[in-house]
């Protein structure tokens, strides 16, 4: 995340260590070391586990570049990530603003908690519920037909829009809460001062509010874009025929065939692409701020 220069004590790594070490040590043992083993596997011809002879190879990475399939799917997944993130901004940011600047007192506290609560249920059960809503003869279809004077057929289940709806639903709370955190920090007197100097609402939003809340937007966008690009469960179940994405082919390499080396190579390519996108996007976003 944005490595802004902290003006506090600049005493360096040594003084940072006591606070830093526990978290990173934990991450090292439980994530970085295991993933390094996976990096190692991604350069192998066979898994040593299976008892077959193995050697080092770059073939798994070459496979990605030699087959148009993976490239097509990665682009489709990046597009999915981008669309979901944009929808989350459009839906989540205004909600965060209302939560931070309009609501007051206990109701604000309560809604802050209520926004995340649905995600203390199970992801799969939530997807089943979406199927109830989106399918033909489902809740959306029935409700719209009850209200509208003409007959329409709504069958969104097993389609790209269904994947988008499911994913936006799952990730929009991240955007609401991270944007809330930075919006709430903006001093109301600053906004009042700007308004009394004659700035319009739109000008205030563009010049003051959005730039000041940028760290929250960036954090939210990263926490949404990154996992959505690799997602496989929501696309597989809600997308039906159209639900094949980069994450699902990685899953197949692990679940359907015992080709961990290729599956691992595909995931590290995904990681590299995502990191490059974040690195390119963060200075642009910061300049906008």
């Amino acid at each position, binding site marked *: 995340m944005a490595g802004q220069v902290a003006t506090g004590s600049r005493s360096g790594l040594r003084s940072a260590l*006591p*606070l830093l070490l*526990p978290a990173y040590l934990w991450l090292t043992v439980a994530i970085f070391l295991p993933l390094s083993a996976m990096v190692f596997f991604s350069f192998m011809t066979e898994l040593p*586990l*299976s*008892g077959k002879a193995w050697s080092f190879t770059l073939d798994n990475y070459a496979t990605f570049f030699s087959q148009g*399939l993976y490239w*097509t*799917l990665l682009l*489709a997944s990046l597009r999915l990530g981008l669309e979901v993130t944009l929808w989350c901004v459009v839906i989540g940011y205004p909600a965060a603003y209302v939560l931070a600047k309009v609501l007051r007192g206990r109701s604000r506290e309560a809604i802050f908690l209520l926004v995340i609560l649905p995600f203390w249920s199970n992801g799969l059960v939530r997807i*089943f519920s979406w*199927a109830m809503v989106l*399918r*033909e*003869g*489902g809740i959306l279809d029935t409700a719209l037909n009850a209200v509208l004077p003409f007959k329409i057929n709504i069958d969104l*289940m*097993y389609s790209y829009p269904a994947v988008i709806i499911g994913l936006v639903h799952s990730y929009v709370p991240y955007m609401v809460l991270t944007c809330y955190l930075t919006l709430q920090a903006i001093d109301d007197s600053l906004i009042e001062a700007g308004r009394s100097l004659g700035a319009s609402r739109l000008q205030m939003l563009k010049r003051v509010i959005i730039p000041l809340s940028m760290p929250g937007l960036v954090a939210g966008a990263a926490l949404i874009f990154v996992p959505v690009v690799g997602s496989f469960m929501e696309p*597989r179940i809600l997308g*039906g*025929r*159209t*639900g*094949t994405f980069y994450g699902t*082919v990685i899953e*197949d*390499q*692990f*679940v*359907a*065939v*015992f*080709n961990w080396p290729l599956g691992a190579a595909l995931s590290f390519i995904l990681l590299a692409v995502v990191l490059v996108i974040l690195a390119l996007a963060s200075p642009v976003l910061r300049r906008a701020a």
Partner: protein
Amino acid sequence: MRMPKLTAFLTATAVFTSVLTLAATAAEVHVLNWKGYGADEPWAIAAFEKVTGNKVVNDFFNSEQEMLTKLRTNPGLYDVVMINAAFNDQAMAEKLIQPIDVSKIPNYADISPDKAGSPMLVRDGKVHGVPWVWGLTALAINEKAFETPPTSIAEMWNEAHKGRVTIRDDAVEAVQFGAIATGQNINDVRDMEAVKAKLTSLMPQIKTFWSSENDWNQMVASNQIDIGTYWSGSADRAKTHFKLPVSLVIPGEGAVAWLDAFSIPVGAKNVAGAEAFINYMIDPKFYVEWVTKVGAPVSANAKAVAALPEDAFNRKVMGDPDVAKRIQFQAPISDAQREAYLALWQELKVNVK
């Protein structure tokens, strides 16, 4: 900041060590199987525990690959594992399972000879798997969509069912299904191009790919599909147990058959318990109760099938000699083949997007 971290950590450790000490006592049989597949029925476990004094501990897998991985990374943890016969070879080659002394399993003698003698389970005269149940991957229909059940696999391609067809999201099953539709041997697919062309023309018909029994049942309950590939045991369960309008069709072109067998992993701590458990699982008494209460595939034990009522689906239809002629049993598949099938399947799925 130090103190809260430390106390939190200590509490965590204390809670978990106290929980962990509960594990591992003497007479336990650790079983690795699909969830909801006979071996974990509470009434069956209770009956087995009462008779033998062995406590059953179930663990589950969601794919064959995962089952093999669990065996590889947990030597000695499991006493019994349920393996599809087509994977038995691989498990044996990796030295994950051991030969079974069938003289300790009285019910073994009643297993029909063609299953017991399957070359997939017996190598060099040593039994590596005790056949348990077998079944079909055939077609199932939504009874609301048909006045008379279809007899041909071609029904899947019928324009009338466009957007109301489902097949399982599984590369091997899809390719073998394509092989049957193009009149080929499922274990020796010569003309892959024909399979590919056939499956490509099926894609626009498809509503979605199913992956679990629950998917299928939900779709048929909400009347979203007309026809699709389905497992025989599951179709039977959907009809008898869940009262859904589902019936199984074994098309004239044939169907894919599979055989599930029990094995004993290398390093099993309770081999005697494992043998007792396998014997119990292939016992007619357990089988009849399983079929009646839950719905099940066909037992490999001839006596167990004979104990079913005469009109039972597993006896009448599945035991029909005419059906036996049409079905093809899945043989082991090499890793290279499996990957080639997956590549084909992924390509088909991407092109349909």
